[in-house]
């Protein structure tokens, strides 16, 4: 973790309604692993406005790449950032996805900017699997080539059916899982490993499947952040440890990636 004044090297439309921000951030880039995030001070906001968290889309070559969508005050102000500007960035933050894997078969399930950290993970993971991308409509789907270039199969679901299967991403996921492995046995479904990143409802659905199938599941939960470093205790998530004890974990420290078995749903608010 470090705080770096970084230079904006690129700032472009990306696809799916997202913008790509490329930052020269040698220190942060060298430490980052997929699933971690950065905390950015957005120029032009009130001096007391909080930093905004963004997943690391890619890190390497002294660069950190982000994908973001303008949804509110902070992200709209980010639109005004120009190449050559300096931003104050803290990162990498949080616990990312595990990077040591057994011989499980990885399934990525992503919605919205959830594709960003999973694309990063696909690049660095030695094994290949299937990436399930879901969205409302075809124009909201992006990063497909990222996964394909990394040797992954991509399955798309859109709610309006304009791309891939029609329906929720869990639909294509279920179809795939059902057909996976030995059709008579099915015990090898436990060899699947789930990685989810996206809206809460989707993550719960993914977590439920992992648990039901006795699979390992990793879910990246986005909690509202204050400090981003573990000090303010704003970003907490209810978790259950191996003994069954329930406590709060910090989304920015113990998360954003949680073991699906730990997550206690719906008791946060």
């Amino acid at each position, binding site marked *: *973790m*470090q*705080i770096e004044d970084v230079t904006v090297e690129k700032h472009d439309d990306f696809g799916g309604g997202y913008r790509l921000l490329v930052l020269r951030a040698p220190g942060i880039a060298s430490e980052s692993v997929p699933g971690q995030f950065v905390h950015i*001070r957005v120029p032009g906001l*009130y*001096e*007391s*406005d*909080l*930093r905004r968290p963004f997943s690391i889309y890619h890190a390497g070559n002294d660069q950190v790449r982000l994908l973001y969508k303008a949804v509110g005050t902070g992200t709209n102000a980010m639109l005004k950032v120009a190449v050559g500007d300096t931003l*104050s960035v*803290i990162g990498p933050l949080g616990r990312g996805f595990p990077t040591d894997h057994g011989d499980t078969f990885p399934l990525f399930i992503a919605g919205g900017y959830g594709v960003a950290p999973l694309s990063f993970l696909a690049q660095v993971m030695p094994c290949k699997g299937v990436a399930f991308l879901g969205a409302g409509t075809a124009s909201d789907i992006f990063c497909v080539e990222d996964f394909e270039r990394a040797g992954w199969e991509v399955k798309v679901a859109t709610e309006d059916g304009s791309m891939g299967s029609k329906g929720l991403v869990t639909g294509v996921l279920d179809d795939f899982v059902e057909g996976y492995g030995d059709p008579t046995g099915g015990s090898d479904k436990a060899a699947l490993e789930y990685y989810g990143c996206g809206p809460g409802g989707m993550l719960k659905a993914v977590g439920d499947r992992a648990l039901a199938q006795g699979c390992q599941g990793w879910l990246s939960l986005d*909690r*509202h952040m*204050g*400090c*981003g*470093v*573990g*000090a*303010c*205790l*704003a*970003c*907490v998530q209810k978790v259950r440890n191996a003994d069954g004890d329930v*406590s*709060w974990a910090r989304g920015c*420290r113990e998360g954003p990636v949680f073991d699906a078995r730990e997550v206690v749903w719906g*008791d*946060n*608010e």
Partner: protein
Amino acid sequence: MSDATTQPDMSVNIGGLIMKNPVTVASGTFGYGPEYAELVDLNQLGAMVVKGIMPDAWEGNKTPRLIHTDGGLINAIGLPGPGVEGFIETYMPFLRQHDVPVIVNIWGRSLEEYGDVAERLSDVEGVHALELNISCPNIKKGGNQFGTDATMTADLISLVRSRTKLPIIPKLAPNVSDIKLFARVCEGCGSDAISMINSMPAMAIDIETRRPILANKVGGLTGPAVHAIAVKLIWEAASVIKIPIIGMGGIMNGDDAIEMMIAGASAVAVGTANFIDPSTPVRVIQDIQDYLIRHNYSSAKDLVGSVVV
């Protein structure tokens, strides 16, 4: 008056606790020490104030716990924490490795609980002072109620006083009409210093759902929005007591801190600003030093309460 070549004396004495410079961090905004340690050298701080501790581990409120609003934040974290034993075990070894006095912010659901935590911390190596949070607006029992009733404030401080020899620093609530009364009560009951202000009770409602945005419904406003309120209260309190004041509330930069010291604060704490720029305390230290040099003060103490009225 110093000549330009000598550095001004930055140290201040907060009720027996010597701070090497007048800048600390506000409880709850800097964790227990390790959280910001990779970004900020704790040894540079005049003191380290940790998040509120009570006898037992405590969950705090449901989420959302923190939102931003015009000119500040509203939080209803609700004082989650590991409890006094958890704190001592988990964090004190780390803190003892540093060369910074540790002030533990404490609270309880009853007077007894305040006394219990105070006593328990009294002989813990590395604990230098206790800040008594009698003014947190975000918990149902205790908290703000102790700090807005002068009789309860007096009882609470007297009890804690009887159970510890550590310097005690009650932390005052801003939502009172006569801050002088509370400052006097604190001094009269044996406090070594006071700190002020805690967050200001506030609320935000989502007009689409018509629900309070914070899970706890109400929270405490902090940040620039409360700065001018804090300056006024510190100025008033300083006019009636002799014990030192640790001032806080919306300090975003050196100027804000210097203003508070001129109003009467012997030391200052940076809170909300840490979230936005963790280097704020260190910048503030530098800015105070520069100001002292520029204005030919030999000591930070000369600034305290120097307002010309």
